[in-house]
């Protein structure tokens, strides 16, 4: 995972719980790296360990940590680092969701060592999208759910998200139903 992801975890913890808690999280996860460079790839294990120790230190479930992290990623990290780019991603939430697959393909060009997930969007009806999430990594479903909630908040729109299925077929495939109100 690129450093930008770990940077975001650090941001989430230090902003909400203080530097001391972040040091505890790092110590608990046995992560010694003093800082993360956003365009440098780091071992996925570091990210998983950080999520695990956050869960222990904050006494939250890993799912809660991942969800919070997803929201934070869109609303803070994405906005701060790629503010204009994020806003140009679509005219509204629905438009942005439609561009989501291309957005991730482009990211691969920017970060050549990244293996970003793939998304596919189907327009089920006027208000409903079906979102397919394919990933070689396991256990990040709640991160995606947090991201989508964050996006809706970014556009100040209301939506309901339902996790319809999760299957493994060489890679992980989650299906979400998104109803835009």
């Amino acid at each position, binding site marked *: 995972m690129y450093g930008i992801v770990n940077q975001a975890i650090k941001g989430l913890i230090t902003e909400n719980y203080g530097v001391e808690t972040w040091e505890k999280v790092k110590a608990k996860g046995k992560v010694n790296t003093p800082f993360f460079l956003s365009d440098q790839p780091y071992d996925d294990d570091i990210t998983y360990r950080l999520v695990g120790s956050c869960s222990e230190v904050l006494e939250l479930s890993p799912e809660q940590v991942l969800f919070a992290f997803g929201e934070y990623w869109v609303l803070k990290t994405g906005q701060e*680092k*790629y503010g*204009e*780019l994020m806003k*140009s*991603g679509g005219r509204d939430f629905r438009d942005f969701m439609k*561009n989501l697959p*291309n957005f991730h393909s482009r990211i691969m060009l*920017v970060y050549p060592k990244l293996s970003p997930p793939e998304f596919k969007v189907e327009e089920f009806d006027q208000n409903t999208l079906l979102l397919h999430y394919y990933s070689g990594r396991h256990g990040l479903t709640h991160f995606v759910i947090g991201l989508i909630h964050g996006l809706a908040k970014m556009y100040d729109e209301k939506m309901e998200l339902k996790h319809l299925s999760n299957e493994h077929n060489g890679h992980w495939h989650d299906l979400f139903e998104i109803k835009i109100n």
Partner: protein
Amino acid sequence: MELSAENYNILFPFYIELDREFQLSRVGPSMQKIIQINRPTPFCEVFQIDRPKLSISASFDSFLNHLDTLVIISHIEKKIRFRGQLIYHEHIDRIHFIGSPWLNNISELQTFELHFSDFAIQDSITDNLQLLRSKEIVNNEMIQLNQTLIAQRDELLSKNLIIQQTEKKYKTLVEFSNDLIYRVNSSGKFTYINPIGEKITGYKNSELIGQHFTILLNEVYARKLVNFYLFQQKENLDTTYIEFPFVRKDGLEVWLGQSVNLVKTESGEREFIALARNIDEQKKNEKALIRSEEKYKGIIENMKLGFLEVDSQDLIIRAYPRFCDLVGYTEDELIGKNSIELLLDREQQIIMNEQNAQRQAGESSVYEIQLTRKDGEKIWVLISGAPYYDLEDNYIGSFGIHLDITERKIMEEELKKAKLEAEASLRAKEQFLANMSHEIRTPLNAMMGMSELLLQSKINPLQLKYLEAIKSSSESLLGIVNDILNFSKLEAGKLELKLLPTDLKKVLRQQVDLFQLKADQKEIELKLNIELPENTHYLCDQLRLGEIISNLMGNAIKFTMEGSVSLNCQLIASNLESDSLRFEVIDTGVGIPKEKLDQIFDEFSQAHNSSDTVFGGTGLGLAISKSLTELFGGSLLVISREKEGSTFYFEISLTRCSPLEQTEESISDFSECSFPNARILVVDDNELNRFLCQTILDQWDCNSHFATNGEEAIEMLKKEDFDLVLMDIQMPVLNGIDATKYIRQELNKETIIIALTANTFESDLKLYSEAGMNGTLSKPFKQHDLFKTLQTHLVPLQKTSEPKPEIDKATYHHLVNLSPLRKTLGENEQIMKKMLVMFCKNANEDLQVMKTAMVEADVPHIKSIAHKMKASLSLLSHEDLVQLCKCIELDEMELDHLREAVQNFTRQVGELISQIEKIILEEFSK
């Protein structure tokens, strides 16, 4: 291959179509979003050509010549640039500009309101923008990282500097130290020795470096120290300390005290850093000290003193033979045991722990403690204990010298017990005297008061004679009681002089006047000789001095049958502030036999065996006078010759003072005064006392009310206000002190409260004042005393001669209503009186029974008494009281309510009875 218009728009959303007139005839959907034209418009109105610029002109033909050129155009108004190429479509004769916007940074997307969906998916311009942004971010991060690294480097540099400086400092310390400092590696070989080492060891440092440290030790200590430091290494002990002798190069042995730190070098190896000090001198002193200690301990042992040494944990280090004998253990049995746990029981352990805390604080102490011997026997010892310390002044233990004091202790206990018994007996005597005087004074109060009242009424001469006899007897009885009380106060040391400005001449004259009548009766001459300076004002306790003189004068007159009694007072010496005065009472009476002279000042003794019957008295007078004289700082002496007379004299020193204005009593004849409608509450359980107060207060037109205990008084105060409360102290249910506290603290009432009591010890008065009482009226009191008390707190009026309006009387006897009885009996006063007397008697009995029934919660009994009383009450009391009686008889009440009603009822009937008794006295005794 032909492209449909729709696909053309998807692939080239920013295309422009130009016709032969060089007008924009069509544009792609995203281009339309920017230029917003809806009719053919000349190209030059909307765009300008930026590149190529010189080789091209704004015409269809010129464009045709640049089909292989990168063309850059910009929107004139919005300044947005497009990069692309020109394509000629022959079949429609149009030129197309195929391209997309050139954006310098991501924020321009927002400026031109463009979104990713406005670009062809294959267009990489947005990817490039994103790439650009990530590079910017990384760049910023690198700058930040660089700054962090610089800060860290600076911090390291400054820390290094400090370390270097510190190192330098320590190096200097080590180099110039007078103590030997050296390093030894893990193999025990010297790697460094500081310069002083050469002086201490006699070796050159270069001779020692690389040598094993045992080179400096004899065989025994070499083995000992090797083992010692192997142990330190094995147990990983940071620091150790040991004392040992080392052998100098010249063969001399010198003692060192050595601290060794086990450290790790940078390479991870372990080595020893040692600091050793020459302690040769100290060792010699220690040896001398031990020898001297042994000598003194021997002396102590020979003196039969038990010597014991314990460490800081109270574990016995050494017990000397005499101590072992004391406690019955052998030294082996004692060594290593906790002395406190082994030799002391729980109670003694607490004492010992306190002593230990003192010792650890560095204080020596001497104390007594009880030890438990091995055989369980308890023995008392006197311990002199002292702490002792190591070289660093740390407390490391203490030693105690034990002296067996068991026998002395037993004697002390016996003495203590005897003392306690004596004290208890003295307290009992004091209490008895106080109680007795109270018990006597209470009825005496009534007797004296009543006599006074009777003396004021119309009586015949014979009655007057009897009455005066009663009055005089009760006064003399009061005198005896006061004697006893004063004596007990003096004996208990509770009597204090109240020194106030006093005109001594006046006091002496008053004393003589007091006895004039008696002297006249016995036809004895009474003389007063005063030889004093003009100012006869002194700070003096007038009352107590008067008591001494009056005792002596009384005795003198009592024992003189003919001749004279003289009271002399003369100045015998004078200094700046005070005068020494001699007082003498000289009589020409029976005198005192020589052999009795020694005893006459003893309490309860009289000179003549028969004198108690002939002359009367308690035999306390002289004892009291003697003690009072001593209180004044003098002593009472006597010169006497049998059948010739006696001279009692004393000398005291009094401080002079200037004459003060005498406060004359503003109203002298209190019988002519009144306190109209002053609401006075008399609280006393003694009916006679209540009646006496009532009678006296009535003559001053007071509106008096009554309560028989503190609780009743509180209830009454809750309902109404009074101007003054006369509060007895000893009462059932709730005493006067507690009642006053309640009134002050709970009711928050400022009503004036006067203690009505026979207990007038200083400590008692303090207690009353602390409870919140405003003053004290001592029982037995005279009308005059009560008047003075009222006068202090209330404003009296001079009575007019007008008769008291009848309405006052009606208010006073508010509970009495005799009209039904009068109607029944007509005007037959005798029968009326009998009826009233009978009512009072019966009602009193009924009330007692009712109170008892209430205590036993016997409700039916209470109701039957109420029924019985109802009939008589309806004849002579007001309707309210009859109603209350009916309620008690008929209503179903809870016990608490019933209790309250019965209390109210008994109080009111009690008051009714006393009002009726008063009516009997006033109306029917005429």
